């Protein structure tokens, strides 16, 4: 309120002197700048400035313990190109992210659709599916570590139905799969709730009309549901893609990047280089790489939105 009055007073005051300067678009613009200013200031101070510093660090050889900080130009970038581990790291990262995004979005949508049926007790199930979101990550991963052992709960369950389960965290493929699944179950509830909200906003009449036209369930899903919830799909896919490239605590607890390098994704490798191996300069270089990858992926999604997202055209 105070801001409105202030703005009015300022505007009125200047208007008196300068006449038509404070046109409506100009006033609007002023309010716009004022409204974004806290976020913008925060972005400059807590995002761009640190990011610039990281870019600067990536040009240094920085030995924290010895206290040396020497400019080495592109040496860290040359190291990046020659790093024999980069191939494996990028492969793991790609597999991990694709697995995570596909599984997360598909499961979230499936659960949301199930919960959107006219069934008694969906509130109850909704709570169950959402509950892992609320459990602390540390506790969640510790529990799964137990469950995924060779003779842990998962294989106990599989054994009950006659399947001889693998040693999950020790095989290359199963370890990657396990980390993906643990992460999906932990967080799919958030996307599920967003999808559910979107689904409940789709008018029932549309389905009824389509049914009269003889469209089957699959066609109704593709032609009505997907377009109408497309803004939510865009939002969740951006969040999930970005999030998939930032998963590291789970990997640290469950596999420490192994077996071999099979679960060493880029952010974990970055963490290892910077914080465990104390190669801050090289870690900063990897940060720059990670940032560029995330930025490129997000940009692609954002650009593509006009093609398929309903409200954005």
């Amino acid at each position: 309120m105070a801001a409105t009055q202030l703005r009015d007073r300022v505007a009125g005051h200047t208007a008196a002197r300068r006449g038509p300067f404070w046109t409506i678009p100009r006033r609007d613009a002023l309010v716009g700048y004022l409204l974004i200013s806290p976020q913008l200031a925060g972005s400059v101070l807590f995002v761009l400035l640190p990011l610039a510093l990281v870019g600067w660090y990536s040009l240094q050889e920085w030995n924290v313990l010895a206290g040396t900080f020497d400019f080495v130009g592109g040496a860290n970038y040359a190291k990046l190109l020659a790093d024999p581990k980069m191939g494996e790291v990028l492969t793991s990262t790609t597999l991990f992210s694709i697995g995570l995004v596909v599984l997360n979005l598909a499961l979230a949508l499936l659960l949301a659709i199930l919960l959107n049926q006219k069934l008694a007790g969906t509130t109850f199930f909704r709570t169950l599916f959402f509950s892992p979101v609320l459990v602390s990550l540390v506790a969640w991963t510790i529990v799964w570590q137990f469950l995924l052992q060779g003779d842990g709960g998962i294989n106990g369950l599989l054994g009950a139905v006659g399947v001889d389960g693998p040693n999950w965290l020790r095989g290359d493929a199963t370890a990657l799969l396990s980390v993906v699944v643990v992460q999906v179950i932990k967080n799919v509830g958030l996307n599920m709730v967003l999808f559910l909200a979107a689904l409940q906003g789709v008018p029932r009449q549309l389905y009824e009309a389509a049914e009269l036209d003889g469209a089957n369930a699959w066609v109704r899903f593709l032609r009505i549901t997907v377009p109408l919830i497309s803004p939510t799909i865009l939002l969740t896919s951006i969040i999930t893609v970005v999030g998939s490239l930032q998963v590291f605590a789970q990997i640290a607890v469950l596999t420490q990047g192994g077996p071999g390098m099979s679960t060493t994704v880029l952010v974990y490798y970055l963490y290892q280089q910077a914080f465990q191996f104390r190669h801050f300069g090289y870690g900063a270089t990897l940060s720059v790489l990670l940032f560029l990858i995330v930025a490129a992926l997000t940009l692609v999604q954002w650009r593509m939105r006009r093609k398929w997202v309903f409200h954005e055209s």
Partner: protein
Amino acid sequence: MSRRVKLSLYGLLCVLCVPFVFPTWWMVTSSVKPINEIFAFPPTLVPDRWDLTSYSRVFELQPFAQQYWNSLYIAAVVTVGTMAVAAMAGYAFARIRFPGQNVLFVVVLVGLLIPSEVTIVPLFQMFHDFGMSDTHWPLILVPIFGAPSVLATFIMRQFFITLPGELEEAARVDGLGRFGTFYRVALPLARPALGAVAIFTFLHSWNLYLEPIVYLSTPANFTLPQALTQFVDAYGGPMWNVQLAAATMTALPILVVFVLAQRQFIEGLAHTGLKG
């Protein structure tokens, strides 16, 4: 819907929810198991013998009540602050035209793309220069104004974009200025989106792990996720039952609040929220 379809849907839901429920169930029940039963194979579903001492140990070993309060108030302040910052910025980016808008939006969006590991060192340097290490300021200021709030701004922008264009016209007819339109008209409509932002933000702050470990050094200042790692014996070996008791105490109240508030949260979202 036929009986058979209904039954199979229920069956599917029941099977699907096992991996969602079992870990939490195991955590809660194991927290009241004696230590040797925690490791039993196959895992016991209900404790054979109840042992509540781990719960009192939690409070003996750490200033747990203080740490609980720290997490709670930080998360609350961050949630309220983020809602304000994000609602304002989201509205401006969605509905006001001003020069440089797109560029500034992209500038802000950069925050969405940065994992916290990337910027933690420069941020730590900054806050240390201000004598703010071992205080809660970095855990409050960075989430409200920095990268974590960008997601909130993004959600709010996506919401405000879906409001009908007549909104501003109607407000102007009523004699409201731009800010009045935002505060009196758009913001009340945004309650469901704000609900989503509130949940996201609260959980993010509540689960923050790397930052408190780096910034905070006095146990009385610790937050809960950090405290959870402190329940180890004298030699660094985890005290599983105490850890699980503490973990249960951090999760259950949130779960209860969610159960109570979810009607409003989800159904609110459904009415005018991030719908298609």
